[in-house]
Structure formats: C-alpha cells, structure tokens
C-alpha cells in the first residue's frame, strides 16, 4: 500500500492522475503535463513535495558531523538560513543521495532528501553518527509545497503571516527564513524562482487551497521532471546512483576538496579518480531530427558505443527532445543515438537548456 501525503484527497478532488512514486501515491498530472510545465515557466505553479523526507540534525557536533558526512562543505555556510546542495557518498565515492542542507543555527541543521531513498538515507545517516554528539530527527510531522515560477513569490507572500512575509520578501536565492512552525526557502527544482515551504501538516491543505485561489496552478511530478531536465538538474537514480561518483555525473562543482584536511566519506576514491583521469562526463544533448530521447538509449560514435542517455524527454519550452547523457571523456562531439534500431544524429550542447523561462544554451 503506497503512502499518502496530507494532500492526497485534494489531488483526487482536482482530478489528478495518481501514480506510485518512491513508495507514495502522487499526482503525475492534473490533465495536461505540458500546460503545467508552461504555467511554471510563464506564471506560477506548485507541487506537493511532502513525500520528500525532512530530517533535522541537532546537537553540539552537527557541523563537524556534516563536514564528515557530505561531499560539499557545510563550513561554506557562514550565516544562518543559508542552504547548500550536496551529495552524500558511500566509502567508494558512489552517490547514496543528493540533498539540500540548511544552516539553522550552530546546533541545528535541516536536510531534505529524496522520497525513494529516504529509508536508506536515514539508516546511513544514523549509522554514521557514531561518537558525534548529534541527534537525528525525521520530521514526518511536516508537509512541503514547492511554489515555482516568475510570479510564485509575489503570489505566495500575501499568504504568509506578517513577520514571515517581511523576512521572506528579502530572501536571497538559496536562503531560508522560519518561525516556530513554518519554514520558507527560496529554493526549487525547476530553474525558476520560487519558494519551498515546509509547514505543519495541519496547515497544508489551507495553504494549498489559498494558492489555488491566488492563481497558482497545481502541477504534477511529470512537469516537475521536464522542468528539472530543461534546467539541467540531475535526478537521483537516473543521472547518478551508488555506482557513479559525482565527478562522472556533472556534479564535480558540488564536491569540496578544499580544505585538504577535511576528510569526508568517499574523499579517497574521488581524489584517486581525479588523479587517474575522470573516465566519463555528463553532457547535454539535443536531438537534431524527429523523435524523443529516453533514458538508457545508447550512443555511438562510428560503431563504438561511447555512452548512454541518463535522462531524456521532450522539452515543452524548446519543442524538441533534449537529454542528459553519460559519455566517455574525450568522445567526439558528433555522434548518434540508437532509437528503435535506427541511428539518429544528436548534438552536444551546454546545459542548463532553459533558465528563467528562456533558452540558456546554444542549440
């Protein structure tokens, strides 16, 4: 039996098509995935992301512990409310999950991890606590709504209480403010501006309905996937997993190898990979002709397979097919994708493909 978020009945009432996702029953769309996608690029839309796992870490050793646990360095977070994107690695340097960590205060950090990996992550996080003075507190009492799009902030602010509203209006990207019950972060997974709001389950349905009344369109996980792909953001389980390092997954920028004395889990294998030459890289692809790129389609230069697509699909903004692919380092920039037995040319392009509603690469 799939788990249900507090908004489950609300989704049904809105006519959502519900699908199993990471152990949860979640909306994939409410009628048209493409219209939902455009709503977020052009106006404002929202996702129920209550299936994601919020975990609070409390205690005097929080910072030391997270500097050991994560490949990115929470030491970079100089002021409270700042957020950091990081991978959590196993001892071979493979990615257990990607996450966002928020610096609340010297003895309190908040992290948000993927739904499908939540149990595995919690197990790992608790196992690594060891002698650190850290308490691990899963916040299953909280729900989470992501409001995204050029109008998202403007439409959300009036729905916050006065104190939070003033603080949220001044938020810089990748920062958060909170009061004892609500937490508002200027973060997201779409390439648009917006908020992610963490709040008590009891407040969640009312906020959702108020956002609907304000003109924010409910959007499903389908649009969430095409938006993040256009924004060139990795999806755990497709673009990276426990068998791949961040370095072969386009996430080298999230690994803090300096300062050299910080010994985080997975550091050794990453340094070795870097020393010996990173064997693969993640690239953006555009299909030149007709068809749709899909994950696991193989890529060939002449007759040699040089890689495969990790995430592919139709880009509603660009009205053509785009993909992320892992290819051997040093591959030529012209190669083919194999699609139903046929080979079609693809072009390597820089990603993100789309940011803030506009083309962000050269097609």
């Amino acid at each position, binding site marked *: 039996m799939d788990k249900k978020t507090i908004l489950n009945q609300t989704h049904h009432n809105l006519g959502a*098509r519900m699908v199993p996702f990471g152990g949860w029953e979640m909306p*994939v769309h409410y009628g*048209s*995935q*493409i219209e939902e996608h455009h709503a977020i690029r052009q106006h404002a839309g929202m996702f129920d992301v209550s299936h994601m796992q919020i975990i609070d870490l409390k205690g005097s050793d929080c910072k030391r512990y997270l500097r050991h646990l994560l490949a990115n360095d929470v030491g970079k977070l100089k002021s409270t409310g700042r957020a950091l994107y990081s991978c959590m690695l196993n001892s071979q340097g493979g990615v257990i999950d990607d996450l966002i960590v928020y610096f609340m205060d010297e003895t309190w950090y908040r992290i948000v991890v993927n739904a499908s990996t939540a149990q595995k992550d919690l197990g790992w996080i608790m196992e690594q606590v060891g002698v650190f003075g850290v308490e691990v507190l899963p916040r299953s009492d909280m729900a989470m709504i992501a409001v995204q799009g050029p109008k998202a902030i403007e439409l959300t602010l009036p729905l916050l209480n006065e104190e939070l509203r003033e603080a949220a209006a001044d938020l810089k990207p990748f920062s958060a403010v909170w009061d004892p019950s609500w937490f508002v972060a200027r973060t997201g997974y779409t390439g648009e501006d917006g908020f992610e709001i963490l709040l008590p389950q009891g407040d969640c349905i009312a906020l959702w309905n108020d956002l609907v009344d304000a003109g924010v369109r409910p959007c499903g996980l*389908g649009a969430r996937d095409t938006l993040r792909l256009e924004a060139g953001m990795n999806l755990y389980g497709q673009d990276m997993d426990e068998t791949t390092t961040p370095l072969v997954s386009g996430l080298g920028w999230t690994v803090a190898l300096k300062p050299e004395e910080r010994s985080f889990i997975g550091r050794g294998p990453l340094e070795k990979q870097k020393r010996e030459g990173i064997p693969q890289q993640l690239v953006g692809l555009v299909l030149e002709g*007709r*068809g749709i790129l*899909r994950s696991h389609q193989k890529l060939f230069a002449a007759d040699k397979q040089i890689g495969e697509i990790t995430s592919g699909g139709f880009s509603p903004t660009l009205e053509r*097919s785009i993909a992320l692919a892992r290819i051997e380092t040093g591959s030529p920039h012209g190669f083919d994708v194999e699609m139903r037995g046929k080979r079609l040319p693809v072009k390597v392009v820089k990603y993100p493909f789309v940011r803030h509603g506009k083309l962000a690469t050269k097609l």
Partner: protein
Amino acid sequence: MSNTPDGLKYAKTHEWIKDNGDGTVTVGISDHAQELLGDLVFVELPEAGSDIAAGDEIAVVESVKAASDIYSPLSGKILGINDVLNDAPESINDSPYEEGWLFTLKMTDKSELDALMDADAYTKHAQDEEH
C-alpha cells in the same frame, strides 16, 4: 470517464477501428489510451502502400511519459496516413476519434473484424486492466 463511442470496433491494445463500409477502415487510439499516455509529443506513422498483417507493430506514439507501440488490428494495405500528426501530435489528445486518426487501411480479410470488441466489451476490458 473516457469516451468510447458505439459503432466503432476496438482492439485489446487500445486501437479503435471504424469500418468505412467500402472494404477500408480508419484506425486510431482510444480516448482511454490517450488519457493513459498523457500529452502526446511525437508520432511515427507507417508508409502508405505498405502491406501489413494483423498484430504487426506499425506505428509509435510517444507522450511526455513514454513511447508506446501501435499494432495493426487488421491485415491489409496502408492507404493513407494522417500527416497532420507530424506537426500536431496533440490532435490525438484533443480529438482521438476525429482529427487524431492514425491511418486508413484496405482490408484483405474482412472476417478479422469479427474478432474485435464492441464499445461495451472494450469498456469492460479497459476497466479490468486498470485494476
């Protein structure tokens, strides 16, 4: 609830078949099928003039979600294809039984029509598949 017009025949693989009464049929995918697929973004149609057997994979429709093969419900020769779908695959979502037709076919064995389902049987089949 999906729309399943009377007077059409249906295949288990969710194609609809309209008997044009002159030895030809028009084929498309059902409203139920387009709902399951979601927004369609690409259609690959057969070549006009090609000879096909019932059960052959002859077209592909791709939605934002996935690619799905279309099987020919009948044997015969492809007469015409709906070119509009090359530029407007969403016609299948908007109008699965009218503007969104896929191809027309000249039947070689009319008795194959008898093996197809009517609207009631197809509705039941679609419901059974959902559960």
